[in-house]
């Protein structure tokens, strides 16, 4: 049998899963073919690696880790479904309240400004009247 056909059987030979006849053929071939022998060694080593991995042990504190995570998830659920909507609504309400307050202050200031301007205007007019000069006359006099 040639290398190509033997190569296909090597993995089954390595796991002792070949009929007796095929097993003998593989053994005969690898005794004289270094390439197939090396390939078989690689497969056996690969199976050895799988066996080593099978012996790895799970984290002994996995239960504690799982419970901690579930509690964390519960807390994040509470945050997500309770605290977050409350916080968002509070921020919106505070925004509205501040907006309202700010507009109040703004309009009050504007009213005051209008009042003071009116006051100043009437005061100035009074001065003009007292001096017997109208505003327009005063303007021309000063700009001449």
């Amino acid at each position, binding site marked *: 049998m040639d290398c190509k056909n033997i190569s296909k059987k*090597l993995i089954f030979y390595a796991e002792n899963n070949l009929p007796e006849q095929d097993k003998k053929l593989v053994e005969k071939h690898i005794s004289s073919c270094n390439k197939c022998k090396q390939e078989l060694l690689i*497969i056996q080593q*690969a199976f050895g690696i799988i066996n080593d991995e099978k012996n790895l042990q*799970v984290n002994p504190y*996995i*239960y504690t880790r799982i419970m901690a995570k579930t509690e964390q998830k519960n807390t994040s659920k509470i945050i997500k479904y309770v605290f977050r909507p409350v916080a968002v609504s509070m921020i919106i309400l505070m925004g509205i309240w501040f907006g309202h307050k700010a507009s109040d202050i703004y309009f009050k200031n504007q009213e005051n400004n209008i009042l003071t301007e009116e006051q100043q205007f009437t005061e100035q007019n009074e001065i003009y009247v007292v001096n017997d000069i109208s505003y327009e006359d005063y303007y021309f006099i000063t700009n001449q």
Partner: protein
Amino acid sequence: MPDFELIKKINQNDDQEAFKTIIEKYKQLVFGIAIGFFHDNETANDIVQDVFIKFWQIRKDFELKSKFSTWLYKVTTNHCVNVQRRKKIITAFSFLSSKNSEDKNLEQKLLQNTKMPEKDSFREEHIKNALNKAINSLPKRQRIAFILNKYQNFSYKDISEIMDLSVSSVESLLHRAKTNLQEKLSDTYKNLNN
């Protein structure tokens, strides 16, 4: 205590002791499957954690239609396949900026090997990498069947129940998986000798 009683306790009373018993009973089996997929302790522990958290989250709606272990293995294999897919996508994107980490590790080991000629450990590392890559490159169903068979020593019948397939389909899947692995490991021989 049988599984169905434990699950009843968890289902009805949120019984944490029963949950602990279930975890203690199955954690190593779930971990074994995850190791078969990822070959990495930390990721496998994460998978165990995710699977049991998932069970805890759906405990109220959980109905035991088949064996609990079968359900657990199904969930584990599905989760592993999904995580692997996600990781592949991440690796594909990270490949744009840098070489993938497995290759980097291998390169580092190669460099170390030139400094300290520990030929056997290098060879083993090379075979380990090749084996992991070979298993991960198998088609999904072949990969699952191979891992359940080789890492957990599950019988064809058990695998057929977990994968919802007939026993003969599992047999054929495993045969194809092993033939594919053989081909990929032959390439390793060529690489080691070049």
